[in-house]
């Protein structure tokens, strides 16, 4: 009989992975707590998949440890009952039927064969259970991968980029499934390179860039600190406008196209100020920086492959992440 506990926790301590001179994961430490969806966010090549492979003992860390419930993954006799993982939807033998792909996994963990039918039903693949999985669409493959993760009815579930390449219906389905699984008290760890996706599903965020931990924060805090609101102003008398704003104690940031961005002020107040000073305004609008922009700003220094000629700093991006500080005027 399993004893009731606080739930299964994943602890990552000082995890490092080097390939030759390249460091993929760099002294990473964090915990994944039970009962919530933890988002694992980072640009492509940040080391998310490498970290997840080390969590599952597929790759050996150069140094550091991963503990699941205080134990090393290799010491779990029937790991599917503790952790279910979707790493790569195509990590199945395409020549085998969906049913047999799941059956051989179930058998290796002493999971009753009847469970295979249950999970196939759960992900909606019962009708194609006897079909070879190589004929599956991306969405069906993803569902099969999720079925294999759910096979042992585990307390911890790990999904690597589960919505990649899915249609809106599939994305919606996975989102709801993750929320339902977390609501049952399970530990959900899901990676993504899309902030917008995480904003909809995750309760907690772990952000990494170039293998380093950039943030370990609750989603609510992240939103509070990063969805900066500001006022955008454009005037043919830009120099004078700037002087007036400075004189009144406003923080002004110059944006592209001759616009000024003013933090911590309302449009009413700034409009009146401009009128008092006799300034012509071509634009006066309230703006809100998106979470995606905040994420890009945060990881900009850590993005490995930049496209030529794009600059993530341009436009209405926030002036920079402000971790640990309370945001003023937001």
């Amino acid at each position, binding site marked *: 009989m399993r004893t009731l506990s*606080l*739930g299964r926790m994943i602890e990552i301590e000082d995890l490092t992975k080097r390939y030759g001179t390249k460091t993929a994961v760099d002294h990473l430490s964090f915990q994944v707590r039970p009962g919530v969806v933890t988002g694992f966010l980072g640009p492509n090549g940040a080391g998310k998949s490498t970290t997840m492979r080390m969590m599952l003992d*597929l790759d050996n860390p150069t140094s550091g440890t991963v503990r699941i419930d205080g134990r090393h993954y290799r010491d779990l006799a029937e790991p599917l009952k503790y952790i279910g*993982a979707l790493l790569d939807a*195509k990590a199945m*033998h395409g020549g085998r039927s969906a049913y047999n792909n799941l059956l051989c996994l179930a058998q290796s963990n002493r999971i009753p064969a009847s469970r295979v039918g249950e999970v196939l039903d*759960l992900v909606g693949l019962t009708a194609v259970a006897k079909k070879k999985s190589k004929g599956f669409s991306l969405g069906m493959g993803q569902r099969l991968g999720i079925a294999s993760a759910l096979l042992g009815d585990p*307390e911890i579930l790990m999904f690597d980029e589960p919505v990649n390449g899915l249609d809106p219906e599939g994305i919606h389905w996975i989102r709801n499934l993750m929320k339902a699984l977390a609501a049952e008290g399970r530990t959900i760890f899901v990676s993504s390179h899309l902030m917008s996706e995480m904003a909809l599903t995750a309760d907690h965020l772990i952000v990494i860039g170039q293998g380093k931990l950039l943030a370990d924060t609750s989603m609510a805090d992240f939103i509070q600190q990063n969805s900066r609101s500001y006022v955008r102003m454009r005037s043919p008398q830009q120099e004078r406008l700037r002087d007036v704003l400075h004189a009144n104690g406003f923080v002004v940031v110059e944006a592209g196209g001759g616009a000024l961005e003013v933090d911590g002020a309302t449009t009413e107040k700034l409009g009146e100020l401009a009128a008092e000073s006799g300034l012509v305004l071509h634009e006066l609008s309230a703006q809100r920086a998106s979470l995606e922009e905040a994420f890009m700003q945060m990881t900009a220094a850590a993005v490995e492959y930049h496209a030529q000629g794009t600059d993530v700093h341009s436009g209405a991006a926030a002036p920079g992440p402000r971790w640990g500080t309370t945001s003023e005027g937001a």
Partner: protein
Amino acid sequence: MTAPAHHHAQAPHAYVSPIPVRAAHLGDALASEWTKIRSVRSTMWTLGVMILLMFAIGLGVAALASASEAPLGEESALGFGFFGMLPASICVITLGVLTIASEYGTGMIRTTLTACPSRARVLTAKAIVFFLLVFTLTTVVTALVAAAQVAMVDAAEPTGAEWLRATVGAAAYLATLGLLSMAVGTLIRHSAGAITVMIGLLLLPLVAAMFMFSQSLKSVQEFLFTYAIPSQMISLYSETPPFGESGPAGWEPLLIMAAIAAAALGGAYALLNSRDV
């Protein structure tokens, strides 16, 4: 979906599965590997072709020998088994390599090792399932073919020991050669690469020996003629060394193959355990 478990005072509560935890062991890994090997087309193809070749070649050779009425001397008709064994070994090599290398090709290996983190258990289960399947099947086929050959060809009556070597011995030899292929597949992790290496190992020494005309290479040539895998297969059917005075005969080729396979499997275990997947 199952109802969440209620937990005293602590929030968030932990999920507790209704599926009981029962410690899995090698037997479960064996069941898993048996499901894997029986549920892919490549198993049916390689073993089907193998059976077909053994019957067709074995019976064909026996029919030719019986028609020619050439005297066989002291030899029994069991020696004809060799002709089916050589092409059969190519099928066994292919299946042995695919048993593990196809998991690398498809990415299934990551799923397999996530489900069973004991890599030694996975490889052991694969080896046992593969060996028993190939051994059982080839024992039956070699016995049927040998019985037909003995009945068709007018030759010396084989002894019990000869019967045993031509059936159980030949089957064990093929299955062990398959284990060596599996080990090479584990080391190389690439189906086409490992099959090429194994077929090269099977045929190249003999081919190379044929072109060693130089006197200085005489000893190398003799060694290759004696110890090349096809030569050893012939030796398996013979009481005395068929090539020169030394060299293996009787059960010795099987022992040699077993030693090589054991060494290769040892390397496969070590590398599988230490390598990233």
